């Protein structure tokens, strides 16, 4: 699958790379949907990765398309779960017992990577030491700056806040702490004048 090239943007907007094997150490790999391919490539590039790896995988709408591939890697531990919320306590448990040197690799959608990074940072791993690889949906996790509610999987600009109903435009300004981009009212100075939504990156 060809990778989506995000356009160059402002300095708060995250950039993603390609997962690379590092030392012969413990790995925590968290992925959703097409993010499984990045894990597969990583484990192929470093033969030692799988035997040291705890994989947490959320297939979401891809169903069992990639699950066999991950099982075939024969990782030390593999969890396939129905949602991030379902996996959260497991991620926290793994981190609570981990030691310095743990390598964390996140792959898949921006929303998944961002939310997992919140847990990883809280556990004390600097975000600069975490690896990211984007694949799959380019929809965004958006915080409404007005009501603070988060709308998942936003794919158009502008969009309607799923909490307060304001019409928000999609900024590239991004908060790691919230794992969200910022949405700001688009018609504050001219109520009701809301442009037609267009697909992001179109």
């Amino acid at each position: 699958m060809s990778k989506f090239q995000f356009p160059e943007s402002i300095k708060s907007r995250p950039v993603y790379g390609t997962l690379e094997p590092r030392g012969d150490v413990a790995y925590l790999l968290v992925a959703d949907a097409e993010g499984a391919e990045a894990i597969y490539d990583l484990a192929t590039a470093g033969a030692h990765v799988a035997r040291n790896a705890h994989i947490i995988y959320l297939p979401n709408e891809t169903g069992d398309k990639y699950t066999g591939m991950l099982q075939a890697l024969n990782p030390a531990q593999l969890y396939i779960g129905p949602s991030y919320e379902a996996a959260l306590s497991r991620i926290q448990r793994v981190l609570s017992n981990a030691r310095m040197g743990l390598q964390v690799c996140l792959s898949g959608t921006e929303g998944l990577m961002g939310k997992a990074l919140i847990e990883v940072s809280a556990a004390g791993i600097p975000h600069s030491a975490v690896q990211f690889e984007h694949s799959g949906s380019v929809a965004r996790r958006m915080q409404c700056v007005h009501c603070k509610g988060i709308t998942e999987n936003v794919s158009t600009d502008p969009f309607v806040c799923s909490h307060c109903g304001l019409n928000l435009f999609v900024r590239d300004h991004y908060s790691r702490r919230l794992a969200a981009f910022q949405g700001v009212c688009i018609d504050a100075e001219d109520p009701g004048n809301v442009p037609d939504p267009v697909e992001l990156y179109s």
Partner: protein
Amino acid sequence: MNTTTKPSGSGAQKMDVIVEAVTPLNDLVTRFDFKRANGEDFPTFSGGAHTVIEMQDGDRVRLNPYSLMSDPVQTASYSISVRRDDEGRGGSLFMHNHVKVGDRMRLSTPVNLFCLDLRAKKHIFVAGGIGITPFLGMIAQLERTQGRWELHYSGRSRALASYAEQLTRQHGSKVHIYFDDQSQTIDIDGLLSGQPLGSHLYVCGPAGMISWVLGRAADSAWPSDSVHSEEFLAPQSGEPFQVRLCQSDKTIEVGAHESLLEAIERAGVAAPYLCRGGACGQCETTVLEYDGEFQHRDHWLEDAEHASGKKIMPCVSRFVGKTLVLDR
């Protein structure tokens, strides 16, 4: 008003002090305690901070940085420990041989380039020799705030490991001491592999030890942002060389045993500085013209900047060649 201005003058602010005590700790290290000449308390500081001490050595002014090693909350006095360096350029020898109780000297306000990361869930200190000094202030700070820490400290011998006994007495099992003459070494790989997430590692000591620990930490996949080190680079002696200072229209000679920064100051030209050890970036100077080779020794400039021939850090770096013209 409101025009672009540079940081004023040179270095941090200065305080007049009186030497309160001179305490030899062993054959190499002497502790100096200071009080303020005006009777006031010193400013408080953060663990890991240093002060730059100004020594009037005949008609020559020497400026050397030393870690503040007292408890940051006890501000009636400041303490430093000076290791005698017989091969050095003379600052430590001046302190050992000439400074006595009652002398007046000048200290800079504290500057911290080796600070605790207060987010750390655990602080691990690795010290070699006189590199113990910044950790004394850090430990005092953490003891007051119930911070979690441990120290691994190696010295040449029981006699030369300054403060080892005192630290063991005060802090017991948090302190691990290693003596070279008893062939005791830090099990660095064991140490690095067992630490909980959120640990931070701090190293201070000889250059060889720092690069060894940093290398092992990288090999153990420790995040570089979780590893901190401080090495005071003493300016190294070298061949004398000539420098043209363009702005001030002066040509100066840099002696074998003085730094370029010291030579600039000796010529009466004000140049900014803070750490005088190649770390803080304050003395960064633009090279206008050169014909020769730089001896870059700082930790500040990027490799590309070193290679560019356009920048020099005069506190630690030197030059060999025909012409050097600086924008100073």
